[in-house]
């Protein structure tokens, strides 16, 4: 055994490439699907339609990026939809009451989201409650608070300052502002994950918590930060929600957590932590948004939509499991020699 013996590249390289290029496969499938749908429903491929889908998907994508941060640490945040709902109502209500101007309301919304995320983070790291249980609890609590504050009141579109909801329609050189927001969030998040100590530690904690502990990585701080950022981004999604829908009540954003978690999983983030990208999560949101849109355009009923949605998620996760298993086997084989 002399220095630096070269060994053959492990087989299954294409699989690992595939596993890492989840983003590319999503884009490829989207394009293929777009072509097929356009044949039967020409309005699919119109600027108006695509903008509309992309704007709504961007709201989910922002929340999905936050969710991905948490999932990478081997946790999950089920309370995001309640955070979105509570923030949306809070922002809409202070605007209706003229308590704050638009900028102030947005800061309030982000701050509220951050605080709610920190509450989740504290429960999980300080009291060591499993995330799925802790955030199921806070999902109920946050939503309960939302109901309590809102009662039967609904903030109408007219209650918002003039022009507040324009952001959801306005474009910058043809690109909707919401899409730009999502792209900026993904870009900043990706740089943090790829090129900072925090990013590295986030993956390490999710991939091997025991090793992370022995390496002196402040695991609890890392997980707490992930939950806090998730809350912050859910807050941002809440603000976007107000701009997008205009009419907000205590039940706004109910059921959205399914879309958020689905986007994360379809986007290739490992539900058991340790791997995945934010771009994947955001593309997952876009992908699911277009699927839903396409199904409606080709004339399928709402019931079909739900079922097909589920099938898409299962296919994505099954493909993941398959690729992972093949990869492991390939690694084992080349590693045992």
């Amino acid at each position, binding site marked *: 055994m002399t*220095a630096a013996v070269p*060994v*053959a590249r492990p087989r299954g390289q294409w699989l*690992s490439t595939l596993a890492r290029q989840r983003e590319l496969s999503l884009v490829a499938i989207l394009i293929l699907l777009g072509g097929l749908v356009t044949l039967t429903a020409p309005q699919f491929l119109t600027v108006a339609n695509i903008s509309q889908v992309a704007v709504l998907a961007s709201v989910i994508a922002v929340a999905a990026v936050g969710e991905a941060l948490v999932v990478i640490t081997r946790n999950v945040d089920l309370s995001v939809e309640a955070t979105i709902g509570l923030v949306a109502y809070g922002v809409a209500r202070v605007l209706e009451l003229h308590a704050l101007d638009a900028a102030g309301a947005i800061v309030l919304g982000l701050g509220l989201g951050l605080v709610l995320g920190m509450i989740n983070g504290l429960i999980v790291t300080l009291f060591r409650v499993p995330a799925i249980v802790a955030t199921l609890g806070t999902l109920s609590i946050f939503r309960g608070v939302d109901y309590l504050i809102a009662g039967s009141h609904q903030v109408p579109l007219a209650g918002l300052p003039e022009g507040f909801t324009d952001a959801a329609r306005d474009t910058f050189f043809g690109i909707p502002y919401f899409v730009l927001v999502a792209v900026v969030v993904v870009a900043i998040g990706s740089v943090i994950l790829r090129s900072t100590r*925090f990013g590295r530690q986030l993956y390490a904690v999710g991939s091997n918590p025991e090793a992370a502990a*022995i*390496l002196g990585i402040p695991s609890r701080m890392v997980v707490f930060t992930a939950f806090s950022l998730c809350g912050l981004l859910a807050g941002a999604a809440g603000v976007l929600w107000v701009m997008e829908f205009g009419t907000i009540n205590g039940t706004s954003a109910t059921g959205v957590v399914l879309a958020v978690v689905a986007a994360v999983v379809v986007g290739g983030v490992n539900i058991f932590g340790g791997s995945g990208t934010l771009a994947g999560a955001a593309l997952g949101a876009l992908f699911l948004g277009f699927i839903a849109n396409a199904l409606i355009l080709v004339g399928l009923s709402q019931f079909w939509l739900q079922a097909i949605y589920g099938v898409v998620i299962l296919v994505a996760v099954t493909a993941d499991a398959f690729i992972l298993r093949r990869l492991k086997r390939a690694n084992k084989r080349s*590693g045992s020699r």
Partner: protein
Amino acid sequence: MTAVQGVAMQPRAEMRGISKRFAATQALDDVSLDLLPGEIHALVGENGAGKSTLVKILAGVHQPDSGTIWLDGEATQIHGPAHARALGIAVVHQEPRLFPDLTVAENVFIGHAPSGRLGTIDWGGTRRAAQALFGQLDVQFDVGAPVRGLSMADQQLIEIAKSLSVEARVLILDEPTASLSAHEVERLFAIVRRLRDRGVSILFVSHRLDEVFDLCDRATVFRDGRHVITTATSELTTADLVRHMVGRTVELFPKVETPVGDVLLEVEGLTKEGVFRDVGFSVRAGEIVGLAGLVGAGRTEVARVLFGIDQRDGGEIRLGGVPVDFASPSAAMHAGIAYLPEDRHQEGLVLDFTIAQNVTLPILPRLFPRFFVRASTERKVAHDYTEQFNVRMTGVDQLVGALSGGNQQKVVLAKWLASGPRILILDEPTRGIDIGAKVEVHRIISELAASGLGIVLISSDLPEVLAMSDRIVVLHEGRVTAEIPRDRATEERVMFAATGSAHFDRADGSPA
């Protein structure tokens, strides 16, 4: 040696010309092996030699590409694990695969419990039958208790009882002693010998060469998927066996004599309630201090306290004469202590990361004080450290999960060295890695000591501790029972102290 002298005895199991290929890897290339009735047959070889592939073929997990298996003279195709069991072939794995929430008796008879009238399971009969099986093995067991909480050794006995319950003709023991204490190994061996005397054919896969000589009648050596030799163990020496395994003569344990320097680490009266008590020793620069003892004697627990993972209840730790108190591993690391954990997969490495990412993980804050990570710096650091250790890899960007055990261990060592420690605590650094890599790890340890590090070596491999250590501190049930200098250290002395059976006074030869 019972059966071996018999001439022209029909083998219980005979494998001829077995080949097996996985994608690009020829795991087995035309190998043959025969198991006689009533013999214990050792199968040895380095990792990747093809031992486990052969075991899996015999157990029905894999089908050979070519070759024939005869059972009691009858050419047989083994279709799957269930078929293998039906044919009387049982495997006891290194890590028992039992259901922790079921009782001992339920585990023994899982899938074939005696049924009563109406076809329901006869639980009373199951318990009695399980009791009878353990009676045959001459061990006492509460068969109604759940398996959870039983020791690894006890769980293995349950696996053996399971194999008896299906009347196994061939029993395969796959590295059964890796996590057993010396006493438990003795008990296991007594049982295995009893089974042999009843005519069971036993295939014993092990990394521990002393066990091969102690227990086995014949030995077969594989290397790189090929059969090297099959011979009676009485005609072999350890040196022969090692030479057959690695294909060349290796110098085991190349210890470098090193002048010792100042005292780096002093431990005094260290106590953790219910785990260890009043543990004291010191480590000087350039010195390797062996921490010997049986599994469960408290060695790893002492190391965990030294590294700040667990907290002590009493006593003092001094580093360079200054009392220290580590609240966390990062505090210990900061003070210059590194700990290579017992289980490199669980605690040592992030398998999803590349080699470079693993090596720099503990030193990220120091390497990149400005929060951002630079890949080029990272790769350079990783390259420098892995090069010292001859890690076999395609490059530092290779995923660490794709490396062999020995190379992974070298990456763990590289990682800790990158943190620039003064004290290195090594917990079972060579467990489960093959001989070639083991010698390299030993060389690295010696060189590190020579460069002035103080090293604490925890190992269950007695020859390793004896050969590598300048001094050996022996623990028994959480107390130090002996401190033996290198020139007086013998296997007997250490074992006596480790089993608590002799009263070596602490002063016995302790330097200063």
